């Protein structure tokens, strides 16, 4: 009797243990990144290892190039490199909790707008000391991408690849049909709106603005603000300046685009605007330089041109950077090796093959654009002058307030001046919290 009971208890205990073990191994599966990094610290004379979290590649060529680059790095430094790739949304939602929990990869691939947040929380280390000891120079990279990797006068993340919001795509056939010169895309805001008026007829429209829940619209309005001679933030990073004259004019220009846009553009986003363009409903659209791939697949026969973003009277044509930078986890036990890897993956040679967007290294970018894009000079020019979004820690909340202001103006609820004033007050509260 007793034996039977013991047997039953044992069975149950085993069951529980098996379950717990199951949970345990599940955990270590997701957190596997940290263990090799931290364990190898003890026996560093042997092989060091690096863990890198990056974005999943749709293009297998890039993936292959990344793997090959990692392999030759392993041979050169007698190290083990483990690359884990995520889709963007997962990288975004997994990286921060992992790093905040003292784990995560040695090297982080950060969207430019995340850098300030990680830097403020001290989850990544300043790279100025490493910089001083190496041949990496800010001039080798696009200015704006470099700026986006800095926070409070320190550099925290080295630019890996970049994209610019945006360039102007225009349909040459529709230009001809409207009596416009297809080789003369509009240069200024005024020309853009005038040409747009001429193109708006017979159920077709000049362009389409948007203000749906996406950040691209803020990239463009930020760009127009800087193009008009304005600034986004003051030097201290504690005061937003979008409510000054250039910002108001920029937002007003975006809202004025409604005159040449199909009705109901407030709820749309950049993809909707691109779809309108590729389906021939609008004659112009603003989009990142990678939009060429979209046009190639959706409207392969379209006769289109790419031009710089229109500029305000007396201003410049300026875009806003997007893209990714590489940073080192503050908890990494192999920071020196991580730095070597960052140098390695941002040098000219490697950049040509392993980036998913345009390389951040200027020399590599030039070659990359010549090879892969039409109108490479236009894009290169747009990248050289592009600005970057405010590098403050609570940028996402700030971008959201900006977006609300844009929506208020486009729905006619408020004037650009009032809406931006209201937004600026709230943003300044956030910046000084």
């Amino acid at each position, binding site marked *: 009797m007793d034996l039977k*009971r013991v047997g*039953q*208890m044992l069975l*149950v205990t085993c*069951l*529980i243990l098996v*379950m*717990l073990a199951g*949970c345990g191994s599940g955990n270590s599966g997701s957190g596997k990144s940290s263990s090799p990094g931290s364990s190898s610290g003890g026996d560093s004379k042997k092989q060091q290892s690096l863990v890198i979290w990056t974005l999943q590649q749709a293009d297998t060529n890039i993936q292959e190039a990344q793997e090959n680059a990692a392999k030759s790095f392993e041979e050169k430094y007698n190290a083990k490199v483990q690359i884990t790739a995520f889709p963007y*949304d997962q990288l*975004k*939602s997994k990286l*921060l*909790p992992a790093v*905040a929990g003292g784990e995560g990869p040695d090297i982080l691939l950060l969207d430019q707008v995340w850098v*300030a*947040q*990680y830097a*403020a*929380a*001290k989850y990544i280390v300043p790279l100025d000391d490493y910089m001083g000891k190496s041949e990496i120079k800010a001039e080798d990279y696009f200015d704006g991408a470099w700026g986006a990797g800095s926070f409070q006068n320190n550099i925290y993340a080295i630019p890996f690849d970049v994209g610019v919001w945006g360039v102007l795509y225009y349909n040459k056939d529709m230009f001809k049909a409207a009596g416009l010169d297809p080789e003369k895309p509009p240069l200024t805001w005024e020309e853009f709106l005038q040409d747009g008026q001429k193109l708006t007829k017979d159920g077709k429209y000049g362009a389409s603005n948007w*203000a*749906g*829940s996406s950040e691209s619209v803020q990239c463009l309005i930020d760009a127009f603000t800087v193009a008009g001679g304005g600034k986004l933030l003051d030097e201290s990073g504690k005061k937003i300046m979008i409510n000054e004259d250039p910002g108001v004019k920029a937002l007003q220009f975006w809202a004025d685009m409604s005159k040449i846009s*199909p*009705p*109901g*553009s*407030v*709820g*749309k986003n950049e993809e909707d605007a691109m779809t309108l363009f590729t389906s021939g*409903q609008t004659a112009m659209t603003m989009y990142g330089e990678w939009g060429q791939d979209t046009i190639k697949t959706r409207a392969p026969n379209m006769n289109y041109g790419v031009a710089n973003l229109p500029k305000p009277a007396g201003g410049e044509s300026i875009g806003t950077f997007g893209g990714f930078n590489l940073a080192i986890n503050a908890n990494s036990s192999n920071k020196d090796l991580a730095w070597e890897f960052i140098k390695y993956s941002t040098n000219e040679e490697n950049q040509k093959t392993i980036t998913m967007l345009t390389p951040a290294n200027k020399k590599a970018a030039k070659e990359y654009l010549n090879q892969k894009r039409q109108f490479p000079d236009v894009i290169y020019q747009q990248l050289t002058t592009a600005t970057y979004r405010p590098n*403050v*820690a*609570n940028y*996402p*909340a700030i971008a*959201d307030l900006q*977006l*609300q202001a844009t*929506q*208020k103006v486009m*729905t006619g*609820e408020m004037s650009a001046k009032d809406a931006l004033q209201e937004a600026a007050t709230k943003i300044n509260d*956030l910046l000084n*919290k």
Partner: protein
Amino acid sequence: MKTRSTLLGYALIAPAIVLLLVLLFIPLLYSLQISFQDTDLSHGAPKWVGLSAYVDSWKNGELWKVGKHSIVWTVSVAFFQVLVGLLAALMLNRKFPLRWLVRVLVLLPWVLPGVIAALTWRLVYDSQFGFLNSLIAKLGFGQHATDWLGTPGLAMFSVVLAAIWKGYPFAMLMLLAALQSVPQDQYEAAKIDGADGWRQFIHITLPSISGVMKTVVLLVSIWTFNYFEMIYVLTGGGPVRSTHIAPTYIYELSFGHFDFGEASRVSVISFLFIFLISLILIRQMHKNERN
């Protein structure tokens, strides 16, 4: 003998309890713990701030707005889902040719994957090519390009309409089952006593299905309160935050702004809210059973 079998009983349910603890209670308590912290990373690593964090989140007017939207959303969607479901159930309870086919077709919105349904409604509401605007034009109310999802005053109405369409078949299915269990002899007796259709409905049908109806109301209210994908896909909470409800707001705070503290606070508040409503409704249901 008795103690032994009780012990064995406990041992056998232990895995279930461990599972519940690990998957439910620990995350719940962890959320509560985070909700007392300031996790805005702009001033460094998370800090313990206690209850004052809650006071701050109410002071920032956003939570009031989200709460108001949540209530409008839940009440109107749940009410109309049950109402339309009831009407549909009454109709389908009658005999007519091809009834089985209609019963199957009516279920379609409910069995459609949520995101696909929402994307379809995006097309319906499109200002330029949308079905709704062209329908209004065909009915003779004139050409126009109403931006159903981009106009702050209309957006809430639009998402509510889509949500009612998506969810009413569930209420219909449950109520139809309840209707079929109402004994026919009661109707015959009522007819002999001279009661008309309306009186039969009020005095026989409604009381007979009220138990099921309360369960349906409870379930539908909770589901609607937590219904995320329709609003997320259709408006993302916009325009000008006019359609943000608790789940979309929590999503934006946690995975948009990475402010897990504030997100946890909103989660805790909405948990308490749902808990309270459930308590009231469950009490009602018990009262009903006792009578």
